[in-house]
Structures are given as C-alpha cells and as structure tokens.
C-alpha cells in the first residue's frame, strides 16, 4: 500500500469515472490553490462528451473524456494512479473492476455511490482490500493536506477551501464514518488553529473497502501525523478495531474520538439512523459501550461534542505554514464559450504582390480552408489538390437541383442575399448534397468491419435501405459520371486507399443488381478524402470517426455550393422576374371528395 509521504512526494493523477461537475471543480480549485502547475484530474470516463471544461485558477482547461477506461491514450494513462468513481450504486462495482483491470498499479481511490450492494462490497474487499486504499462506498473521499483531494471531502465551495485550510500541510488525521462529519471535523480542526495532515471518510456502509484498521495504519505510519481525530457512530463494531490496535501497540499515536448515538437511549426500540450501519444490533454496538471500550485503552472519548472540541483545542500544535491563496479573484470568474484556437492564423500576412508582379500562390484558398476545417496544418499537396478539385467541381450543378431552385424562388420573393442563400443551404440534406458525410461513415464502417463487400451490402441494405454514396438518377454503367472519373484519378497519387478500394468493391456488388447503382460523386469524394487524410496527413481511425461525427465531409459540398447558390441569387436579382408562382399545369390537385365518392360507390 502507498504511504502518505509517497503521495506527497510526486504529482498524483486521478481518473474520474462518471462526471460530477461540482466535485471535479472543487478538486481543480484545490490543485490550483496548492500551486500545482496542472490539474490532478487526468480525464473523465463519460459517454456523449469529448471534453469537459473547468476552471483552473481564473482560466479554463479542457479535461478530456473517454467512453471506456481502456480508451485513455497511453500518454494520459501513464499519469493515472487514483480512481474517483462517481457512478451510481448500480454501476459502481463493474466500473471499479474495469478501472483496476486497466490500471492495476493504481494506488486506490474513492467510490462515491450510496446503495452499493453488500455482496459487491465484500467482493471488492476480497480483490483490493489488501493492496489499495479505497474510501467508501459512500462518504466523501480522501484528502492529503496540500497535496491530494479525491472527492467532495473538505467541501465543494471556494470559501470552504480557505476555511478548512485544506492546502496547508498539517499534523492531525481526521477519520470519520460520516461524510458530513468529516467536513465538520476538518472545519473544527482549522477553527482550533490546527491543520489536517490527512483525512478520509470511511463511509457509513456496512463493508467499507478500506477498513478502519487500514486507515489508522496509514495515519500511524505517517511521520507528519501527530494525532488522530475520529468520528464514529452507534452500530457496527469498527471501534473495537481501534481498541485491538492500541492493545497490540499497532496504534501508538493519541486518539481523540467522538462516538455519536447516545440519543438511541431515548427510544424504546433501537432506531435505524441515516447510515446503513447505524443501527444497534447487539449490546456492544451502542455508542456508550463503544466509548467505554475506547476509554479503557486510553482514548480520549468525551461525552459531548463541545467537550470533544475543547479537547481538540488543547492539543499541542506543531508548526505549520499556510499557503496564501487569493481566492477572491476566483470568485468572480466567468465561464467562456469554448474556442481553443484561432481558426486561421493570420499573424503573418502573405505577400500577394511583389515588385510589380503577382506572387504565385497555388491553391492558397483551398489550403487555408482545409487547415481551418481540420484544425491542423495540411502537409501534403495531394490533399490540397483534392480539396481544390472538389471545390471546383461542386460549385454548381445547374438551376434544376432543389437547393438552387429554393434560392431562386426566395430571391424572386424579394428576399435578400443571406435569406436566399439560407433557403438554398437549408435544402441540403440526405437526399441532396448532404450524403457525403454519411457515405464517409459507410466506408469507415465497411473497412472497420473487415467484411467482404457482398456481405456488407447485404447487411446495410436490409429492409430496402439505401447506401449513401451509391446510385445516380441519370448516370449508370455505360454512361459514367464524368466528375467521378476525374476525382477517381487521385487514387493514382498515393499507395494505400482502402476506403476507395472498398467503395469500388461495393459498387461491383450494387451495379450487378442495377446499373444505376454506381459510385456517385459523394461516395468517391468521401472515400478518397478518408484515404488521403489517413495516408498523407496521418489521421488515425478515431480522428477520422471524429471528423464524420462533426460532419466535416458535408462541408466539402457546402463550401463550393454556397458560391453556386449566390450566383443563382445574383442572376435572379439581375433579371428580376418578380414573384414566382407554380404554373397550374405543374400542380396536380386531387379533388377533395374524389375518394369519398369512390368509397360510396363501393358501398
């Protein structure tokens, strides 16, 4: 088991299972106030989010999120040595095991959930009881003054950080079965002019993973801890562990204890109090019996809480040095909207004209646009050239297509440029222009599935579903889409193109059924762009999947087609034909009572 001094010696990293923003923020505030250069929270395991934004001091930081503990990349995983499990009682068991399977060298952690079944607790004790320090289930976690805070322990408000003097290295160990009383005692220690060396809330459950003996041993062996303040309750027999340890001289530091539960004597029957364990089942579990047993071995165990505080105040206080933290400035901090970068770095303005001559800058717009979209520098000319080619080819496809029609109709209704453009853009979707992204997803799935094309097509088209990226109304086998051929030539520029190859395999399967089911322009763009990003720009499968989730591939259509829509708008404004009305002969109107007559006839 790790010692407290080892914890103090080097930076500790915590992986959060689940997300509890209040607790995570309080840990970052603690870290900042301790003067750490980076937060102890390494990452969160939580679905649906890629990152979570928290304050670190006055500024903000992004804590990365992953779906599974095994998804944490090696560079981050190497920093993890503690678990903070804030998942519910139903998931606490499985998630704890998954964590220690992935991080078998981790020192321990805290399970926050209440309602973890006893059977799960005893199984966790069997697995980790002897090797890890685990606070809970339930309670509020672990605190090492000035170094480590895992959980809500010591509070979650900025003012509490200062009031409890949590960032000072102290000399008193605070150990408690109750989460609330842990914090009460931490506050009391600070108010008495003393500081906490270490604190742990064992939790009010029947079977805490780290036992009271484990925790007391930690305090006993810690050179900075001079004495122990303990809060216990009626119910259970944990306090007899203290008695045994003192008798066996395994615990030699002075213990000051308050055992709550004298109130139980006011009732006819033993009462179940708040914590699972807080019920007197046998005589020796009463508060009075436990106090007396503790006193018999020399523990100071006052009758009343005010007496307990007086005894605390009288304890000798070793010297300590408070760290001054300017918390006031933190209280006014405000959340920002996430933006981690300037989309296009224009610190260096390019030279466009030099010596009376135009400076030739090849595909400069396409390059800058792709860099902005991808969020990184584009290394390969092939990538830029493909981007340029797509932008060029997709500017317009005539006035018949639905987006152009909507732009024109809106323009003729007297609307402005942005409104007309928006009408066109809003038409983009699964049936018009918006299929590039879904096609990319299809090729990613296909390659990742390692399935043969026929089987893949069979599965994907079950129930009459369409494969996006395949099929054209006009072009077919024998009348190829010239744009597809032009873009496909890019495949000759680099070696590996698994997505493109797979798309062609799929096309073989689909065209065997129907000659119109050819690889279309959306499909070929998506496939080749995926391959180029992987091959020339070093994108990983995961990064490609992220681009699909962020609809990057649809942007390849939206950008050039915006130019096309605007052109249609300008043309309409120039000609100004007035309000458009659909000609009567183009509108098929069914008479309202047609069906009714039919029905009557049948009757």
């Amino acid at each position, binding site marked *: 088991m790790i010692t407290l001094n080892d914890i103090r010696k080097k930076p500790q990293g915590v992986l959060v299972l689940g997300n509890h923003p209040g*607790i995570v923020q309080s840990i970052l505030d603690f870290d900042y106030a301790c003067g750490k250069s980076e937060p102890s929270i390494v990452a969160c395991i939580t679905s649906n989010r890629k990152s979570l934004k928290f304050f670190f001091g006055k500024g903000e930081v992004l804590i990365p999120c992953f779906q599974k503990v095994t998804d944490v990349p090696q560079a981050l995983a190497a920093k993890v040595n503690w678990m903070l499990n804030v998942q519910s009682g139903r998931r606490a068991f499985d998630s704890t095991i998954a964590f220690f399977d992935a991080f078998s060298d981790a020192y321990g952690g805290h399970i926050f959930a*209440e309602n973890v*079944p006893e059977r799960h607790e005893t199984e966790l004790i069997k697995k980790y009881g002897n090797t890890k320090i685990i606070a809970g289930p339930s309670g509020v976690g672990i605190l090492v003054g000035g170094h480590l805070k895992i959980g809500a322990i010591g509070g*979650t408000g900025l003012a509490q950080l200062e009031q409890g003097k949590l960032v000072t290295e102290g000399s008193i160990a605070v150990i408690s079965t109750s989460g609330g*009383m842990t914090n*009460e005692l931490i506050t009391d220690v600070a108010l008495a002019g003393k500081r906490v060396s270490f604190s742990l809330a064992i939790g009010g459950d029947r079977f805490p993973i780290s*036992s009271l003996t484990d925790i007391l041993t930690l305090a006993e062996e810690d050179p900075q801890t001079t004495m122990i303040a303990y809060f216990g309750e009626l119910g259970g027999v944990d306090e007899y562990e203290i008695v045994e340890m003192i008798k066996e001289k395994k615990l030699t530091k002075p213990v000051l204890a308050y055992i709550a539960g004298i109130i139980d*004597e006011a009732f006819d029957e033993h009462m179940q109090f*708040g914590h699972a364990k807080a019920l007197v089942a046998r005589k020796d579990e009463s508060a009075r019996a436990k106090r007396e047993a503790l006193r018999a071995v020399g523990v100071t165990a006052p009758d009343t809480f005010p007496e307990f505080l007086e005894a605390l105040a009288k304890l000798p206080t070793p010297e300590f040095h408070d760290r001054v933290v300017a918390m006031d400035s933190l209280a006014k901090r405000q959340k920002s909207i996430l933006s981690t970068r300037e989309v296009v770095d224009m610190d260096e303005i390019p030279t466009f004209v030099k010596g009376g001559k135009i400076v030739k800058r090849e595909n400069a717009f396409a390059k800058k646009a792709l860099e902005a979209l991808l969020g990184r520098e584009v290394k390969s000319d092939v990538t830029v050239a493909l981007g340029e080619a797509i932008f060029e080819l997709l500017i317009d496809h005539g006035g018949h297509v639905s987006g152009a029609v909507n732009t024109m109709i809106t323009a003729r209704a007297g609307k402005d440029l942005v409104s007309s453009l928006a009408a066109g853009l809003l038409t983009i979707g699964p049936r018009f222009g918006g299929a590039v992204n879904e096609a990319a997803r299809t090729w990613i799935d296909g390659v990742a599935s390692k399935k043969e094309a026929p089987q893949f097509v069979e599965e994907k088209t079950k129930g009459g579903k369409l494969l996006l990226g395949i099929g054209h109304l006009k072009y077919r086998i024998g009348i190829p889409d010239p744009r597809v051929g032009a873009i496909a030539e890019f495949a000759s520029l680099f070696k590996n193109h698994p997505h493109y190859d797979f798309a062609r395999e799929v096309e073989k399967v689909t065209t065997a059924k129907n000659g119109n089911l050819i690889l279309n322009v959306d499909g070929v763009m998506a496939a080749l762009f995926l391959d180029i990003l992987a091959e020339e720009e070093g994108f990983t499968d995961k990064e490609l999947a992220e681009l699909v989730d962020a609809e990057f591939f649809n942007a390849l259509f939206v950008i050039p087609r915006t130019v096309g829509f605007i052109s249609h708008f300008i043309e309409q404004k120039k000609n100004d034909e007035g309000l458009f009305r659909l000609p009567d002969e183009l509108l098929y109107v069914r008479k309202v009572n047609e069906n009714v007559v039919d029905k009557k006839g049948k009757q």
Partner: protein
Amino acid sequence: MSRVKLTEYRAKKIILGDSYRGISIRSDGGKLAPLEAKGSLMGWVAKVDQGVKKRMKQGLVAIGVDAAKAKEAFAAWRKKGFSQFLLEPLFPHEASEEQYLSLERVRDGVRILHARDGGIEIESHPEAVTSVVVSSESDIAKAAQATKLPEQFLHDLLKAFNDNFFAFLEINPLIIHGDEATLLDAAVLVDSAGAFFAKSWGEDDLVKAQAQHKAEERVEALAATTPAQLTLKVLNTEGSLFFLFSGGGGSIVIADEAQLQGAGDLIANYGEYSGGPTREETHLYAREVIALLLASSAKKKALVIAGGVANFTDIAKTFAGIIDALSESADKLRKYGVKVFVRRGGPNEKAGLELMREFLTKEKLLGSIYGSDIVITKAVEDAIRHVKMTS
C-alpha cells in the same frame, strides 16, 4: 442502504424453488379451495408472514389445521391488524430433530452459525454453536465437515444466498433426513441495495415497517421520486423540539446533545434531508415537519434547522426551500410563539444564512442563527433553553 425483511413465503420460494408447496395469502383468505384439492394427510400449518419475531409465543402460528380452521385463524389475526399469511403442509418430526442454522454476510464472506439443538438460545450458549466463515467455494466442504450438514445443501443454500443478495438467513428449526433438508421456519433479510440486481424478489416481497404517521407516509412517497435522501420518523406528536436535519452523522450529534441535556423526551421527530435535494423537494419535506410542529399541543415549541458543514449540498438552495415552507405558515408560527434556531455550513453558506436571517427577522421568528464557525450543537442548545424557559 439497509437490510430489509423478506416474507417467509418468498424466502422459501427462492431457496426451494418449485418444490416449495407453501401458499401465500394476502387479502381475505376466502380462496382456500385449493387447500382441499392439494390435500395433506396431516393438515396444514398457518402463520402470519410479516416478519414478526417469536410468532409461536404470540399465538401467530396454528398447527395441523384444515381449510376451515385456517380461515378462523386468519380472521382472528386480521383483527390484530395483520394482513399477510402463509399456509404450508404440516411436516411431522420429533422435537429432538430440530437444528439451528444461520448465514450472515460479513466482511470476509458468509458466516455460518450452526447448532445441533435448535431449541437453545444461540447468544447465551456460544459453546453449542459452530461458527465457520465461507470466503470461497473451497470453504464449503470444510463448513459441511464442521457442521455435519449435507455439502450439496450448503452449496445450494450459499448460492441462493449470494445470487439473491441476501444479507442474513436464519432457519430455525431445520430438519435433516439423510441428504434432504426441510426448512420449517426461515427468516431472511435482503440487502435493499441489491433490489436492482436480484430478479427473484421485488418491492411486494419486502416486509415494511408500517408507517406510524401520515407524514411519514408522505415523506416516503416523496423520497421515492428523488435521488436525494428524505426520511422522517415521528417520535412524539406532542413534542417541543422539531428538527430539520441535514445529513446522517451531524444529525446524531445534535440529537445526542438534546439527550445529554435531558431533553430527549422533548424531541418530536428524527429524519434528514440530504444528498443535494432541490429547493422544491426541500420545501415539501419541510412542510411536513412544520405541520407536525403546528399540530403538537406542547406549550413551547421550537424548530431547529441544523446540520454539519455540507460537502456538496447547496445551503442557499435548500434554505430557499425551507423558507418557502415557512412562509406558508409564518402567521401561525408567530401566533404560537415558535422560534427557529439555525446552525449550518457548506457550499454557499454565506448566501444561505443571510437569506434565512433576513426572512426569520422579518417574520419575527428568529431564535438564533449560526454558521460553520460556531459549534454544531449551539442551535439545539439555544432551542432547548427556549422551550424549557416556561415549561
């Protein structure tokens, strides 16, 4: 969260499966026709199945009855307020055959206590009791050897115990004929936290302590709809000290102080709102306690809103909920001379205390109010002084 009694019917059904022939009777006991059809040479045993201890002594078991006699017994028990019964075929045996067996989940596994003689008081005769802790599969054989119970029976029993999230099982008496075990009487406590995982038992199979007071019932219903903890126990409807406690450990410390100052009998209620309840939930909870306070005929009454230094419960938010409830009855509270005493700390402490102080001052209800820099027991001390002043 805690260990809860399972009905004997469900316990035996889980342990014995389809071979169990007991019949659970919940409503009027009118449909006893199957009894005659099923038949039993020796008749039936009828008993109350509501987790009552020492049923035999209390006359809540009838042995060797037929359908008509069973009906009579049920009718008599219903008059005593019971509503759940069990009928089992009578199992003839000698008293000398009766053994005692219990299983309890402990830190390092399952502790088995066994006594050859089922009639003895287990606690007062430790020498007659064999105790074995089973930590792994391989310990079962050892346990069988030590207790001389059939190994397969112990194996199956432990499997049922673990699979179904039992916390405690007592079979007394247990009859063993060869490898065949018969459970004449079985009491089971299940771990309520296992409810989600255990498919074999549900809400309906748990024996609940009857809510003694309407307010307790309402708080129970409210608690079922939130992840926060809301509990209420009415201890003395004519009490003087009414508590709005926030959190397990701190509430016991404060209640202790009342007991130590000789005011234990003045305590009207115990319970807590904790685990970050919303303003609305706190409002509804506080309303129940205030209603209890108004209904008490004690001359001097005080409301104590007290707790430790919270870790993550927002003080301003929960206090706003309490103020919502107090505003509804402020006039009445003032009329009865009720004072409110407060001690609380935690996130948003300053704002919460300020809000409360302002409200109580305006409504002339303020007894005293303290934050985390004053000892946790101060508010209850002040409250006791207030209620004892004239009474």
